């Protein structure tokens, strides 16, 4: 099971990767390798919250797999800056990227983090490993 050390994780199987930029702290959010494996083939990703500020653990989108539907929860409070155009039906329309490259090209949203201190509540790779094993 692929669980990169440089990411933080939630119990709902999202990951977050932060980046310091000139505009402040931004982050990429996606679902874990474990999550994509459990869901199976992902056929649609819906994110209709771009431009909105979403609270920690609140729903920012939905993933449709063949067999099941799963909501996406934001790991920390933040503003949704961008929905990955490679997944978006009206652009790349390639939701299978979540299966193929969950930590890379399959990132789901880019967000601006409201409060950096919220990151400390999240799971480290080793704790996430314990959670799913």
């Amino acid at each position, binding site marked *: 099971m692929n669980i990169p050390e440089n990411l933080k994780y939630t119990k709902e199987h999202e990951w977050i990767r932060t980046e310091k930029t000139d505009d402040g702290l931004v982050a990429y959010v996606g679902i874990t390798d474990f999550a994509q*494996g459990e869901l*199976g*083939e992902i*056929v*649609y990703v*819906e994110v209709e919250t771009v431009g909105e500020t979403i609270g920690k653990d609140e*729903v920012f989108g*939905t993933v*449709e797999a*063949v*067999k*099941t*539907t799963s909501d996406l929860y934001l790991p920390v409070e933040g503003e949704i800056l961008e929905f990955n155009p490679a997944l978006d*039906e009206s652009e790349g329309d390639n939701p299978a990227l979540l299966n193929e490259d969950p930590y890379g090209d399959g990132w789901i949203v880019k967000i601006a983090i409201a409060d950096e201190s919220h990151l400390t509540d999240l799971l480290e790779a080793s704790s996430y490993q314990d959670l799913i094993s």
Partner: protein
Amino acid sequence: MSTEVKKTALYDVHVKAGAKMVPFAGYMMPVSYEGIIDEHMAVRERAGLFDVSHMGEFVISGAGAKDLLQYVTTNNVSRLTVGQAQYSCLPNDKGGVVDDLIVYCMDDTDGSEEYLLVVNASNIQKDWDWISSQNRFGAKMEDRSEQTGLLALQGPKAEKILQSLTDVELSEIKFYHFTNGNIGHITDVIISATGYTGAGGFELYVDNRHLDDLWYMLLKAGEEHGLVPTGLGARDTLRLEKAYCLYGNDLDDETSPIEAGLGWIVKTKKGDFISKDTFAQQKEDGCAKKLVGFKLSDRRVPRKGYEIKNQNGDVIGVVTSGTMSPCLDQPIGMGYIYTDRWPSSDTIWISTGRKDLDAEIVKLPFV
């Protein structure tokens, strides 16, 4: 009933093949090997091999067997000849469905009749108890679920693959008929022209001791025809494209077969059977709800339990099955709409709880 999760005789074979295993109806079953969509398309275009050994098998035999089955099932058992099978259901005494099943006629000689009943895995104990409780006809009952393996070889190439392994003239087995024969070195296989995919093919009943031999023999013979192992995930998307009911979703103890669109297996003129009067009245006067199929224009997928609404946002029914159709590349679903809230047009809305999705009632099957 035991809460222990059982394994079919092929459990290790599936794990070795890299299948994703999930608990289903008390068994660890393969949901997919390489991916549901690829497996689905393999069955529609070439062939797929399913292990469905979790299904239950009862043998009902001896004097009274036919009378018992006429009373506990809705279809007309007396119309069956040896070598013929029949889709049917077991009604309860409130006009609902205990289970849906296939009845195979092995012997119809009066006094020494023999029928094989194939029932849903999740209902084995319930069906057994129900049929037993109705057996005032003195029929012998035997539960062979534990020793019987079942493989479904489905798809347009199924006949060619199977024919390379048997002397039985497969093209002579009509739909919903069966014969007993050899496949390779394995004797005494029930070769049945039935299935749950709408893609054609055969279901093969064999003693569990021979199940892995049969599995590998078929996969090898099918290699050149593009045969692949297929899991329960594809089985569900395949059956839903053909609008076949799934017990626990589209059929249950509270739903009548007439409501489910299965009036064709309810023979109200055949003589007495359980809930006959209720069904006769529903055929005459209509039902409280009716199963419909619908397609969505959005990419969101309808799921069991989502509400169906009309243009005013009033709840008019509920979704019982839904998926992304691999053949149509579009979300499809089935559900019940209450007759007294029937919408004025074919446009309905499917509510995810947060959002209402446009849908259109369509004729079934979808594919």
